[in-house]
């Protein structure tokens, strides 16, 4: 583990005294490997190590800690600070129906998360959500959202065969107003951040529907590419937050740090399973400990 490796490095430190350039250098190397193995982006690791080095240099090793513990404490604190110190709430302010739109790469978990979010809004926030299946491309995508909606007793807008994604959103909005739904949860098709036509589709929906929240749904096991994905979605849509899925596996989840570092937007929820109740609020300290291994 990282703490064992750091303990070995600092075992050679004679007595106590200050953390200096020399003893920090090896520690930073170990931290670098730990973060890269956890899938934190290479460039994000470089920046992160620099901020740790600055914090650690010249610090008096506290009486109660070994130098290794001191460094781990700094690393952990820096990471928690980076991940967004406190829990970020979902924004439901403004005139109803409040639209929430989920976006992201293919297979990241958007459709399932839409249903999980609708269930959360219904049971925990006592809202009346309306699910909107705006994915007309993937085979049986609308069917998938409809079946999930049925499982949790949340109504799902049913598109007609010729509606395009924008029309689906606008018509669902009209229907929601007429029938007193207070929240729209919009499922969009998975798409590549480099597909201009598909990214434009989202920009147009954003302009016309004005979602209160645009949430990027990202897979916790994503590797170095997480920064490219997050950066592009954020630049095109100015996302409001992130939902990290499939976190209950053994992926270290370094993508969380990369995404946060490059977008500065909060991770709001995590998916913790395939079942429709498997959605939790994001806790920065837990994620930080996991990434550090």
């Amino acid at each position: 583990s990282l703490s064992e490796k750091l303990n070995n490095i600092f075992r050679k430190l004679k007595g106590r005294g200050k953390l200096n350039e020399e003893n920090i250098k090896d520690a930073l190397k170990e931290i670098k490997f730990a973060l890269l193995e956890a899938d934190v982006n290479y460039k994000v690791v470089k920046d992160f190590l620099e901020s740790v080095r600055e914090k650690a240099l010249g610090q008096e090793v506290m009486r109660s800690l070994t130098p290794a513990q001191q460094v781990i404490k700094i690393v952990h604190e820096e990471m928690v600070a980076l991940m967004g110190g406190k829990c970020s709430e979902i924004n439901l302010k403004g005139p109803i129906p409040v639209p929430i739109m989920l976006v992201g790469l293919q297979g990241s978990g958007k459709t399932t998360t839409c249903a999980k979010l609708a269930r959360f809004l219904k049971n925990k926030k006592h809202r009346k959500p309306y699910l909107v299946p705006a994915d007309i491309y993937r085979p049986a995508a609308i069917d998938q959202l409809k079946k999930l909606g049925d499982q949790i007793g949340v109504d799902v807008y049913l598109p007609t065969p010729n509606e395009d994604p924008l029309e689906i959103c606008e018509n669902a909005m009209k229907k929601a107003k007429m029938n007193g739904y207070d929240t729209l949860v919009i499922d969009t098709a998975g798409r590549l951040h480099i597909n201009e036509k598909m990214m434009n589709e989202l920009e147009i929906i954003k302009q016309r529907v004005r979602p209160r929240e645009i949430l990027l749904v990202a897979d916790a096991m994503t590797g170095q590419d997480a920064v490219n994905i997050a950066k592009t979605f954020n630049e095109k849509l100015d996302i409001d937050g992130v939902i990290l899925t499939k976190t209950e596996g053994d992926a270290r989840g370094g993508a969380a740090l990369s995404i946060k570092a490059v977008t500065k937007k909060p991770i709001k929820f995590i998916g913790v399973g395939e079942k429709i109740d498997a959605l939790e609020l994001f806790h920065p300290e837990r994620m930080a400990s996991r990434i550090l291994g």
Partner: protein
Amino acid sequence: LITGKKIDDEVLERLEEILIMADVGVKATDELIRQLSKMVGKNEIKDSEQLKECLKQEVLKFLKVEAPPFDTSKARPFVIMVVGVNGTGKTTAIGKMAKWFKDQGKQSILAAADTFRAAAIEQLEIWGKRAGVVDVIKSQPGADPSAVAFDAVSTAKARGIDIVIIDTAGRLHTKVNLMEELKKTKRVIGKVMPGAPHEILLVLDATTGQNAIAQTKMFNEALGVTGLILTKLDGTAKGGIVIGICHEFNIPIRFLGVGEKITDLRLFDAEEFAEALF
């Protein structure tokens, strides 16, 4: 990024960055850089052009796997089981493969053995139609996946169908009961037809990081994976994780997924893949 420079620590560090950012991973990158440093030390590499070529050759060594070729005429029906974690592209890959075989004049039956996820059966049926398969064998949502696999292989045997492809539910490799379910499906298939499944393909998403190693390890230990499919290479991810994986587990890459259309399936070409890394 590194052309025109003489080989020094800075160049090797640049190389490390390229490999790590391609998801090659710390361990495999370390091994590759060590090999190259040795060659530089012995003066076998004079400039960065040579360095690039040597790196490509080292990567190719990692990617080349001694494995039997993918030959669906070895048995009839030739049974393929497709597995992997959630959302990697299994169902889509099955549609693409069925079309691939159809174009070769082979008839396929698909087994909708993902009886868990909402509309998984409907999704496979649409792909089956698009690929022109003979039939999609299915049951009810919530039914025993092994029963569906059993029916599909029995049907294929009875009707002299060339190929059976079995779609399974996505599952995290850490979920013991779900991995046991897969083992049971494999056993049941073997009961209907000894020697089957003839191919167990693990589908990996090219955007996945180091967790792909753990995925491969666990699926391999549970089932014996005979081939990999690497999907979503049409994005910006390089899929470098397969370099370490092929090297460590000796499992060949059978196909690449390069898009969402039924024709977006390619046979794996190691040279092309190594070139595209830089």
